[in-house]
């Protein structure tokens, strides 16, 4: 068992209780033996108290008291499990339209998204909404689970019908890799163990799919981007003149000797050394946290970006973003916000709302230009100084922003640069 080279895969599950989402997660955790005895004992007791037959898998993902009292999930909850092949982080988010912002949050770091479809109902509005968000957030892999196959007699025809339905509307979306799996979360078919009831299905189980998705090529390795978080100046013996630029590689590869440019100043130099803690490295790549020293003494501070000399981002003061409004309070027209882009911060304003997206029908609304909680809109943003941006499609790290309200310090919006 080569645990040491195992990768981490983050995936998001969006859906409501009715889809069997909680049951599915419970099943994944239970069948992969990630549930502990005391958790099982507590849930078995609760199941009995509620009058359920057997163990209610959905209780494994039970949240805070407020949520339990209301019987819903409000926030993003993170769950963990490990198999001999990979470590997994599940960002479990509620699926109702009023929780769009939570779905967006959960999707922002995901390598893969699980879309749940009830086999009896087929593709519904919620399916389209989840798929749209997965596509908008540029999640590379989409796994469509057609659940509750036990309630449609494990019918291959029904499954194929739903696949066709899905493909019809998803042609409008940009997703690299879509897979379909017929499952029964309740009975466990094709979740961890292969289904005895659906011999006609030749593909892998859900867990097998999660374990084998090829994710290492999803990171942008072409455009090298490194935002400086902080400058290390040890001022102790042996390191008197040391200036290390600490940060996390957003994309691309950096090697000792590389010719680099520091933005926004534009000064150029060469990489003298790369460190990860005490360890000296010859090269570094995303998402490594490192510190870099340069051959030349250049004034560099937090918010600056070190890039390859021959591959630089576009400095822009005005740019279009797809913006998801997160705050209770709606956007004020032409109000000023702080825009956070990588480790950089500038004042900014929303200059114009181009259109609002109807995330159920994929239609653009150019009439209604209010930005209310959970709205996804295309807007024009203007910042006081240029930002070193990439498009979100090319780079999730340097193509994303958040807006912060100066009056409340709250994070009010998240944006993907078009």
């Amino acid at each position, binding site marked *: 068992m080569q645990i040491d080279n195992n*990768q981490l895969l983050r995936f998001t599950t969006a859906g409501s209780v009715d889809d069997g989402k909680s049951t599915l997660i419970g099943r994944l955790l239970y069948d992969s033996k990630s549930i502990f005895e*005391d958790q099982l004992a507590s849930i078995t007791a609760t199941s009995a108290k509620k009058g359920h037959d057997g163990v209610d898998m959905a209780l494994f993902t039970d949240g805070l008291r*407020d949520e339990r009292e209301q019987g819903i999930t409000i926030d993003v909850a993170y769950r963990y499990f490990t198999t001999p092949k*990979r470590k997994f982080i599940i960002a479990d988010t509620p699926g109702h339209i009023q929780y769009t912002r939570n779905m967006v949050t959960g999707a922002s*770091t995901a390598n893969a998204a699980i879309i749940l479809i009830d086999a009896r109902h087929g593709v519904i509005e919620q399916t389209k909404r989840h798929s749209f968000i997965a596509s908008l957030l540029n999640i590379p892999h989409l796994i469509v689970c057609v659940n509750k196959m036990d309630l449609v007699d494990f019918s291959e025809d029904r499954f194929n019908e739903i696949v066709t339905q899905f493909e019809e509307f998803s042609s409008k979306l940009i997703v690299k890799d879509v897979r379909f799996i017929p499952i029964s979360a309740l009975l466990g078919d094709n979740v961890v163990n292969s289904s005895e009831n659906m011999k006609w299905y030749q593909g892998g189980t859900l867990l097998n799919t999660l374990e084998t998705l090829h994710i*290492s090529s999803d990171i942008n390795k072409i455009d090298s981007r490194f935002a400086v978080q902080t400058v290390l100046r040890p001022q102790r013996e042996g390191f008197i003149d040391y200036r290390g630029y600490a940060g996390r590689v957003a994309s691309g590869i950096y090697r000792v000797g590389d010719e680099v440019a520091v933005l926004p100043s534009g000064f150029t130099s060469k990489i003298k050394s790369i460190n990860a803690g005490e360890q000296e490295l010859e090269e570094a790549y995303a998402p490594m*946290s490192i*510190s870099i020293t340069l051959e030349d003494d250049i004034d560099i501070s937090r918010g600056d970006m070190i890039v390859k000399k021959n591959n630089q981002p576009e400095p822009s003061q005005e740019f279009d973003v797809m913006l998801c409004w997160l705050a209770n309070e709606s956007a004020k027209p032409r109000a000023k916000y702080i825009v*956070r882009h990588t480790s950089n911060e500038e004042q900014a304003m929303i200059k114009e709302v181009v259109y609002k997206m109807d995330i159920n029908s994929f239609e653009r609304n150019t009439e209604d230009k209010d930005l209310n909680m959970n709205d996804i809109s295309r807007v024009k943003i203007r910042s006081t100084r240029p930002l070193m941006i990439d498009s979100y499609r090319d780079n999730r790290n340097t193509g994303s922003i958040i807006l912060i309200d100066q009056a409340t310090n709250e994070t009010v919006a998240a944006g993907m640069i078009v």
Partner: protein
Amino acid sequence: MNKYYLNYLDELESEAIYILREVWAQFENPVILFSGGKDSILVTHLAKKAFYPAKIPFALMHVDTGHNFPETIQFRDDLIKELGVKLIVGSVQDSIDQGRVAEEKGKNATRNALQITTLLDAIDNNKVDCAIGGGRRDEEKARAKERFFSHRNDFGEWDPKNQRPELWNHLNGKHFEGEHFRAFPISNWTEMDVWNYIKRENISIPSLYYAHERDVVFRSNSWIPMSEFLKLEENEQVVKKKIRFRTLGDITITGGIESDADTLEKIALEVSAMRKTERGDRSDDKRSETAMEDRKKQGYF
């Protein structure tokens, strides 16, 4: 085969270092909450890496219940000396003496809940604007929704319904005077990840985590170490057992498990075969279904 990817431990390490550097960049006076347990030792180790060759730029803050394992205090003092960082101690005994809190009564009395006041006082008195903790989301359900940067109001309270969304790697630590943040760089680690990493990096941890002979009392399904603070019930007996601890808290509430695991390899192997959560031996979490959630709201770790 493409070699340009990280394994899961490297990715978790990189994420934690990123968070620690963000804390340093966004706050004036951050501290590491140091209990002497493996999670806070891990956070300290990661901070060492994050800022090398500079020293760790944070003080270590210890909330001292007075009910300590002597081994923990020794370990703490040695580590402080090695790293050359400042130690801030908030003393629960002082809080009691000053009448800020009252000691619990009865057989299961602990100083666990009293720590909240001491912690918040220490944060206030030292003008700390960010306290870095070793909390992990897999520990307890109230922690599953915790943010990397967790906002506390000016009473130090956690409002789970009013936390800032965290998207991509954008962490927003902006705050007003009097408010503070808790930062959790190892949120995404599980107990197993922690042990695998400690083993890989060969991080030194208190001897209490290794199997050793100890005088213990069987109570609430685990072996509670005998100490001057423990009041024995009539039917309880002190016995000698070979045990080790999975978590370290107050000596009065931390239950040990019978074990022969006396090396990091054996501990990691044992943990991977465990069928009970690590906090299952902590009597502070057994008090009610929402014990952790309630303490967190008041300002607990």
